[in-house]
């Protein structure tokens, strides 16, 4: 448990501290230097430069900042939405529960990536998003965030619903009900604390999933848009130079791999430790 946590912490610290530190040392991550393209490692550029002469290390760290921010934000948002759906479905039961669970079942079984590609290609003007927002640099961040939440909320929903079903007929919940506690109060103080541990584990595991999703969409040209750098967009650029500069493709892929691996190992370790019942995630 300690090793994946340290690895993840190291990647996060470097990603968030690296770019400002580099800027202070005079290395700009977007500075183009066409005379120094595809250079090997040097003192100024420890990992060399890319096809436009930009510093690879700096872009790698900045890419990590974007990938991690999106992943953590999306994992938390998906967990929040899923929790709400799961609590409502599990507590109300009846046809609300049946309808919501049919919906999550259907979403889980669908071929998600093809559908996400359609969603990623939508024209935001036709959707009625204000033009100022639709043209800003950050829109690709928000879009990915929305897609990741849309794809990811079902895990938390199923988990919380299951735990709610088990808990809602326990004596302490009945006691609270007979004392006149309202539904929101019961859900918040009596049921939610009982699902917190598996929920935290699932959220840790889903951070890795979001990083993979972001990287594949960015790789296909549908995710983060230039000038922002993410690991996926770096790989997408490197693909064209795969035979002449293979290292440009190796670095960002290795970063994705290590980060996702650390998230998965951490989630698994948490599960082993706190939640032995659910040793395998369905």
């Amino acid at each position: 448990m300690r090793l994946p946590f340290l690895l993840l912490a190291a990647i996060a610290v470097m990603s968030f501290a690296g770019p400002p530190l580099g800027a202070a040392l005079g290395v700009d991550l977007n500075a183009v230097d066409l005379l120094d393209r595809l250079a090997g490692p040097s003192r100024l550029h420890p990992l060399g430069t890319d096809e436009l002469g930009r510093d690879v290390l700096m872009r790698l760290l900045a890419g990590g900042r974007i990938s991690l921010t999106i992943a953590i934000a999306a994992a938390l948002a998906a967990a929040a939405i899923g929790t709400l759906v799961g609590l409502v479905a599990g507590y109300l039961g009846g046809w609300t529960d049946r309808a919501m669970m049919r919906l999550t079942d259907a979403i889980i079984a669908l071929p998600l990536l093809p559908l996400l590609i359609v969603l990623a290609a939508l024209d935001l003007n036709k959707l009625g998003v204000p033009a100022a927002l639709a043209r800003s640099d950050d829109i690709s961040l928000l879009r990915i965030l929305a897609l990741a939440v849309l794809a990811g909320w079902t895990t938390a929903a199923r988990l919380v619903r299951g735990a709610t079903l088990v808990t809602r007929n326990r004596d302490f919940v009945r006691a609270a009900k007979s004392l006149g506690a309202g539904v929101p109060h019961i859900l918040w103080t009596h049921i939610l604390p009982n699902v917190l541990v598996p929920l935290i584990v699932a959220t840790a595991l889903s951070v890795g999933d979001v990083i993979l999703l972001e990287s594949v969409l960015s790789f296909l040209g549908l995710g983060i848009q230039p000038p922002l750098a993410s690991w996926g967009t770096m790989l997408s650029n490197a693909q064209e130079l795969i035979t002449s500069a293979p290292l440009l493709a190796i670095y960002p892929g290795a970063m994705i791999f290590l980060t996702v691996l650390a998230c998965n190992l951490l989630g698994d370790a948490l599960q082993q430790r706190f939640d032995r019942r659910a040793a395998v995630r369905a």
Partner: protein
Amino acid sequence: MIRFTAIRLIEIAAILVLMSFVIYALIGLMPGDPIDLMRQADPRMSTADMARLKAVYGLNQPLFARYLAWIRQALGGDLGYSRLFAAPVWSALLPRLGNSLLLMGLSFVLALMLALGLGTAAARRPNSRLDTAINLVCFAGVSMPTFWLALVLILVFAAGLGWLPASGIATAGARDFGDRLAHLVLPVATLTLASIGGYTRYVRAAMREALDQDHIRTARAKGASEARVILHHAMRSALIPVTTILALSFGGLVSGALVTETMFAYPGMGKLIFDAVMGNDYNLALAALLLATVTTMLANLAADLAYGWLDPRVSYR
């Protein structure tokens, strides 16, 4: 059983109708529209021409009316004309569906066989060195971005060693079986490696549970051989939970196939969907997305039926 299948088929049809409307509406929200594309191709076209064309093709009608017109045509077997392929949608779709099913089928069978072997080996000696090693390999497989794995495989086996072709489905002009097979190796390997980690973990968990049961101890006490205990007694009960999880993984297999096909320029459904969406080929994108959905849901149904067949305690009434 028949009643269960019938209900599931009706459910699948209902989801399909819903999905077809959602996808139809979404495709209408993609950038540009067919008449704008025609105008780009022919600058002499006037605004009056455009309005007339829109009326001819019914594009000035409300969304739901257009959808009903499309579904009436589609039910009559006419899915329209593909802009990218300059051919009816059906004739672009079917050969690619076949290619994809071949790729996914081979990878699925291969990954399942390997997962059954590895998962059982790991479950027999929990926390042994072998178990730890297999577990690590699984985590590596689950954490590997599919497209990066494909890149690395191309780099090593196609660009570096030159053993295998990097893309396509056959060398131009070559018609022999070996050539087809050589083109399949890297895509199948990618998709297999991408799914094997998850499958193995499920098999291991199910197998551990199965090996803990009383009837296994009974079988051992009776003096059954280890092979018989594993293959005859434990495997059967372990396969039941595995089937459920495999059913849910078909959607993931289609997603993995999309990435793999795009990376290897393999002419399958995944690459077709990607190209159709990127190339504003509305008819093709719509039909291909729906076909991918139907295939996934039918595979799910097949897994559900296999579940009943594997476990006599389950009855679909």
